[in-house]
């Protein structure tokens, strides 16, 4: 009784001879009056596209984990040689509107006078919203090509100056910082939208 549907099938089955493996063509379905726009070739392409898309999603997530899209191990970089008197720790890859910072590490040799004068490329500063500098500079001076910050530091002790900001301009941004009387340190930053 329960399987009544199976026993009253009177229409001969075209597929039976071919067995399970026989592919069902569009023609086959039209024969039975099934008017749908099935397109197996397209469907298979779409499945392949979707599979590729899933793999791409995993790859994107993994790349994001290592910091390719900012905020990860790959996104930070250091720059600075002996001649510059500082080491710059900055984000190589960062994002529009996401908190970011720039750290200037000063070795003991750079702080011997108790006062540090740091010039930051003006064009670079215009592409971001500066939110704070730690420690606060004693004075700020605007020059045509740079902002010059003067910091009070403990003489002869290494220290770090931190600029907190959020990037506003998009794309590749070049910047440079320089200690008074030393060579500048240049760096490039990629800001994702």
């Amino acid at each position, binding site marked *: 009784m329960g399987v009544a*549907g*199976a026993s009253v099938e*009177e229409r001969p089955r075209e597929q039976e001879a071919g067995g399970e493996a026989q592919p*069902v063509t569009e023609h086959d379905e039209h024969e039975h009056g099934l008017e749908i*726009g099935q397109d197996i070739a397209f469907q298979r392409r779409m499945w392949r596209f979707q599979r590729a898309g899933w793999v791409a999603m995993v790859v994107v997530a993994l790349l994001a984990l290592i910091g390719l899209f900012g905020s990860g191990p790959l996104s930070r970089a250091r720059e600075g040689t002996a001649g510059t008197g500082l080491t710059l720790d900055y984000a190589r890859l960062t994002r529009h*509107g996401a908190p970011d910072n720039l750290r200037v590490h000063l070795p003991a040799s750079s702080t011997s006078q108790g006062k540090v004068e740091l010039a930051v490329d003006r064009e670079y500063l215009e592409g971001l919203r500066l939110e704070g500098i730690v420690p606060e500079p004693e004075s700020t001076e605007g020059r045509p090509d740079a902002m010059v910050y003067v910091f009070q530091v403990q003489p002869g002790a290494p220290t770090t100056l931190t600029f907190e900001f959020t990037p506003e301009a998009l794309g590749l941004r070049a910047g440079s910082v320089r200690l008074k009387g030393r060579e500048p340190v240049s760096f490039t930053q990629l800001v994702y939208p």
Partner: protein
Amino acid sequence: MDSVLRAAAVYFFLLLIFRVAGKRTLAEVTTFDAVLLLIFSEAIQQALIDGDQSMTNAFLIVVTLLGLDIAISLLTMRSSKMDKALNDVPLVIVQHGRPLEDRMRKARVTPDDVLERGRELWGIRAMEQVEYAIVERTGAISILPRRLDWAGTPERRSAPAS
């Protein structure tokens, strides 16, 4: 200008990502799916408005999103290629009571899904009673039962035809 570009970027990103996810992904929205959708909207919202709380911005975003939606629907009406690419195609997964296993697996539909739908729609008990099951373009499964008479379910037509 920003609002339009942002809205367009979000629109096309979502279009792509939901095509990649496949039509079955959100065909039947479970409680958890509903929660996921809420989280998506929260995540996207920030990027969409970008701190601009003005009404102008909100209106521009709505106009852009709706405009794109209409443009896309006009495009899919004119070109069947675009229609397939964006709206997908239906797929037969059960034929004459026989599940087409390879297709079902690829379309991420189980025989249980088909039977569940068959029970809901036609009171179907077994796969043999399904003439065709089709994954529609929306991702929903439609069921065509075998030779159903108007009196009721397939189970009742026990009298032989000839």
